[in-house]
């Protein structure tokens, strides 16, 4: 190991944050860009499944809560793009990489929201799993990323409570509402488990990322934690987790549960999910249709700056 790299690793080990101007290994920078970029894109694409129900939200209050939530997600995207920019990649570059398929977003957003209960399930399960992933990342080694995660986590837990509240109303509601709630749990359970990624045994980057403190816990560890937290919540709602093998394991102090279908995971990742096309198409359209707006505003800002310079 080169001295620079050793010094870097020592800082990381000592929980001293790495800042943009600090020396860092190229692999660290690249991995971070990929990870933060993917996270940012997930916030942006993640607006879409929930945005799908804003115009159909059942009350004015629910509509406002949902709108505020989706707005928060755009804000999270903004924090994260800013964090990634400190690593030398622009927001536009990252957007182009998303649209060309070079960068990914979380595969969970390739599942559709088919009923209002899905909005509850997304908040409860998807945000729940996201928080599980993100809370440890508040302690990640890269300063700007760590600080973005602190802000994000605060809002996410609020979102999760809102989602659970929707589920509660549905689960305590009419027969049709209960059925909707159960249906949502059925469809979102396994995709939520997939959010932690395949077992670490099969993950190539994990070890180095953990040494760099870009990744803090193992995928399986977090998945277990998520199941242990979520099963009692489902029971409280009177809903059934769609897993016949689910059972409390006294020895490990946690639940035994069925693995999600990883073939499905890789299929969806490769683009064969029910709404992959819709998601990317929506973002592509927003980007292409918006080109004239971005150019127009830029041109105007330029004119104003020139006028100011001329006046000085």
């Amino acid at each position, binding site marked *: 190991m080169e001295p620079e790299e050793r010094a870097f690793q020592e800082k990381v080990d000592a929980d001293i944050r790495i800042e943009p101007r600090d020396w860092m290994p190229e692999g660290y920078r690249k991995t971070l860009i990929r990870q933060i970029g993917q996270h940012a894109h997930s916030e942006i694409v993640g607006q879409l499944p929930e945005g799908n129900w804003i115009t159909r939200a059942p009350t004015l209050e629910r509509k*406002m809560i949902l*709108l505020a939530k989706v707005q928060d997600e755009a804000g999270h995207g903004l924090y994260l793009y800013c964090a990634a920019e400190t690593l030398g990649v622009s927001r536009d570059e990252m957007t182009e990489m998303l649209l060309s398929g070079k960068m990914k977003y979380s595969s969970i957003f390739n599942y559709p929201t088919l009923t*209002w209960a899905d909005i509850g399930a997304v908040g409860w399960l998807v945000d729940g799993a996201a928080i599980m992933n993100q809370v440890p990342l508040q302690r990640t080694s890269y300063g700007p990323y760590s600080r973005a995660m602190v802000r994000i986590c605060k809002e996410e837990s609020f979102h999760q409570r809102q989602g659970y509240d929707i589920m509660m109303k549905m689960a305590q509601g009419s027969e049709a509402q209960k059925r909707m709630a159960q249906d949502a749990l059925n469809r979102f359970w396994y995709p939520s488990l997939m959010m932690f990624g395949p077992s670490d045994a099969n993950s190539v980057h994990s070890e180095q990322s953990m040494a760099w403190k870009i990744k803090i816990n193992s995928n399986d560890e977090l998945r277990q934690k998520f199941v242990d937290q979520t099963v009692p919540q489902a029971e409280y709602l009177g809903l059934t987790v769609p897993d016949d093998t689910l059972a409390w394991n006294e020895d490990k102090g946690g639940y035994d549960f069925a693995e999600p279908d990883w073939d499905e995971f890789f299929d969806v990742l490769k683009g064969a999910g029910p709404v992959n096309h819709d998601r990317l198409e929506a973002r592509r359209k927003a980007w292409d249709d918006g080109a004239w707006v*971005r150019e127009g505003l830029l041109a105007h800002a330029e004119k104003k700056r020139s006028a100011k310079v001329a006046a000085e």
Partner: protein
Amino acid sequence: MADAKFEALLRLGDNALILGHRVSEWCGHAPVLEEDIALANTALDLLGQTNLWLEYAGEVEGKGRSADDLAFLRDAWDFRNVLLVELPNGDFGQTIMRQYLFDQFNLLNLRALTESKDTRIAEIAEKAAKEAAYHVERSRGTVVGLGDGTQESHARMQEALNLLYPYALELFITDEVDDEMAEAGVFPDPKSLEDAYLVAVAATLQEATLDLPEAHFGHRGSGKDGRMHTEHLGHILTQMQWLQRAYPGQTW
């Protein structure tokens, strides 16, 4: 008077509701992330205003209808919004031009409403006027930026203005409801706001290097009294009211 006040409150509430709905359609689809956030913010404020106006409208009516009942259980003919706010989003320029034309009116109207003899209305207007001032600042700025941007953005903004400006004039059409409310000192006479509106719009357009089109709101029957709407309103309602219609009387 209660009837006229109910009608006048519906007009305020429905304008905010339908425009808020339209703006919320952008969620996740705006040209820049900052605009996505700003549009969501505008929609949120408008829906908040909707809630306050319709809640009070329901109380004035005295039939026990809540703001949600009024928003989700009336059919198109009972809506009292102007046509401007129900028009489709079009491109971003059309959306922002519609927003500016409405915001500018909304601000003047709300400021006048802070002087209402009805203290409840004055209080709501006080809060809403602050939001509207921010909305105008933003939509005005974007209209100027895009009007005085590139050749393409200029052309698109002029086209949006040509399409929308005639609809903006509906805001100043008055009827017996307006007369009664103005006389009672509860609502301003819309006509009394027209000069200030035209001056403000002219200043904005000049800065935006856009030309005011010759315009004429030729429609007989206005959205304000429900005698006329575009076909778009009905489609908005199919979405907006879906859950309440499909699962009536539930708690959400």
